[in-house]
């Protein structure tokens, strides 16, 4: 079942196109990696998918009963957050706000849900801890738990392993893969090509003409995929 359909998109700001001719579709349960160099329009695509900016032309369609605000978003961390005084519980609960309507305070159901999502990501014991005292990997899990509270069907992750050491990054990817196996649709924006080669179901490569969109196996066999992978290997060896 198709959940998200993008057709002939032109994306950009104030009439200035950043991306043109972008078409892809995401089915329920897909694991899509969105790859591309800096400036290839990845963050513009994220903002468009979240309806923060309108597309210049073309259409973005949510299908199968999915609403735009049902996408669980994991943004990149800001420097201000790193020393923000907040408990893990407070942060995860704030993911429930979009379903509170006009009610000013959380109910029992919201607290249950926040706890369940913490357990699901294996950090149930951290609920009372202070966010700024956690490790980078733990902080990402907290923000992921918040995203799960906001949406149960689709996750949109912006560089989920940025700033993590290799071991923590691996754990993060394994965790995301597990959530995907449990039925969540996952869209990951990244420039981590080896991770895409390992975990992705579908790959969208932006920034090079022609844009590539297709399954992982086809990408790894395509000229752009081979070239990028060779480059990533070279960087690793160096």
């Amino acid at each position, binding site marked *: 079942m198709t959940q998200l359909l993008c057709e002939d998109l032109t994306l950009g700001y104030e009439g200035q196109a950043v991306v043109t001719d972008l078409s892809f579709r995401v089915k329920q349960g897909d694991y899509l990696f969105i790859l591309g160099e800096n400036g290839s329009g990845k963050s513009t695509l994220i903002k468009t998918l979240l309806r*923060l900016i309108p597309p210049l032309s073309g259409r973005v369609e949510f299908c199968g009963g999915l609403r735009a*605000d049902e996408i669980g978003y994991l943004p990149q961390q800001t420097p201000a*957050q790193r020393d923000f*005084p*907040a408990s893990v519980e407070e942060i995860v*609960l*704030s993911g429930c706000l*979009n379903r*509170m309507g006009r009610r000013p305070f959380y109910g029992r159901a919201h607290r249950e849900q926040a706890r369940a999502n913490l357990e699901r990501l294996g950090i149930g014991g951290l609920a009372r801890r202070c966010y700024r005292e956690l490790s980078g990997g733990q902080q990402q899990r907290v923000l992921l738990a918040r995203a799960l509270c*906001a949406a149960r069907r689709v996750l949109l992750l912006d560089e989920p392993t940025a700033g993590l050491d290799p071991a923590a990054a691996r754990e993060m990817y394994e965790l995301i893969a597990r959530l995907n196996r449990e039925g969540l649709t996952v869209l990951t924006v990244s420039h981590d090509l080896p991770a895409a080669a390992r975990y992705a179901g579908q790959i969208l490569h932006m920034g090079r003409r022609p844009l590539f969109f297709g399954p992982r196996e086809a990408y790894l066999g395509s000229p752009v995929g081979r070239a990028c992978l060779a480059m990533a290997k070279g960087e690793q060896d160096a």
Partner: protein
Amino acid sequence: MLETLALYFSYPFVRYALVVGLLIALSSSLLGVSLVLKRFSFIGDGLSHVAFGALAAATVLDLASDMVLVLPVTVLTAVLLLRSGQNARLKGDAAIAMLSVGALAVGYLLLNVFSKSSNLSGDVCTTLFGATSILTLTPADVWACLGLSVLVILFFLLFYHRIFAVTFDETFARAAGLGAGRLNLLIACVAAAVIVLAMNLVGSLLVSALIVFPALTAMRLFKSFRSVTLAACLISVCCAGAGLLLSILASTPVGASIVCVYILVFGVACGLDGLRRRA
């Protein structure tokens, strides 16, 4: 000492002033937590200078109540400043620096050229550094302060969780459809209202102290948003109360006395934090 206090508190007016002072301290500390964490502390400073300019204009125009002009002008400036944060040709901090010195200069010039007062420098000093004594607050001031601060406290109570979400992560709040834009607008209006209120107590140059000190002190000691907010309120009310009593006993200027108590308590909090880290 106790006799002096008893004498002062036998005037109903001093009692009202004390209540108003504490309410102002409470509402500015609530605002402060959010402004400091959003990295907007300097907006409070800029706004207070704009409010001084508006106050000077109101004095020159001989308006019945200064609030009629000062409050709308400050609210408008706050909205414009927070708006411009997103897409400004002038960089945010430079725009604020420009506005605040500009408003100071124009305000002082207006007072100098048009004022009918015989004690000009005294008047200017009062608006900049606050009343020399809380006895000089007028009944209209007291009631206006009371109403506004109750509104501010209600706002923070009802929107507490949403304010947390927008303060901690504005992008996420926008993506989740929480109406972050509208909430920011509301926060801007409340900020302006608090600053105009607090000017009555400590004067426009010292307003920022009421906003930043309680939040920064509480952040030294506590680790969750709720405990920081509650502690900031408590610290603010206690410091303002102590400062007010001190100014009565020692006949010192109200604003400066309160700010000095804040500084002292902030120092103590830093010391405690340092000790805890070493332990």
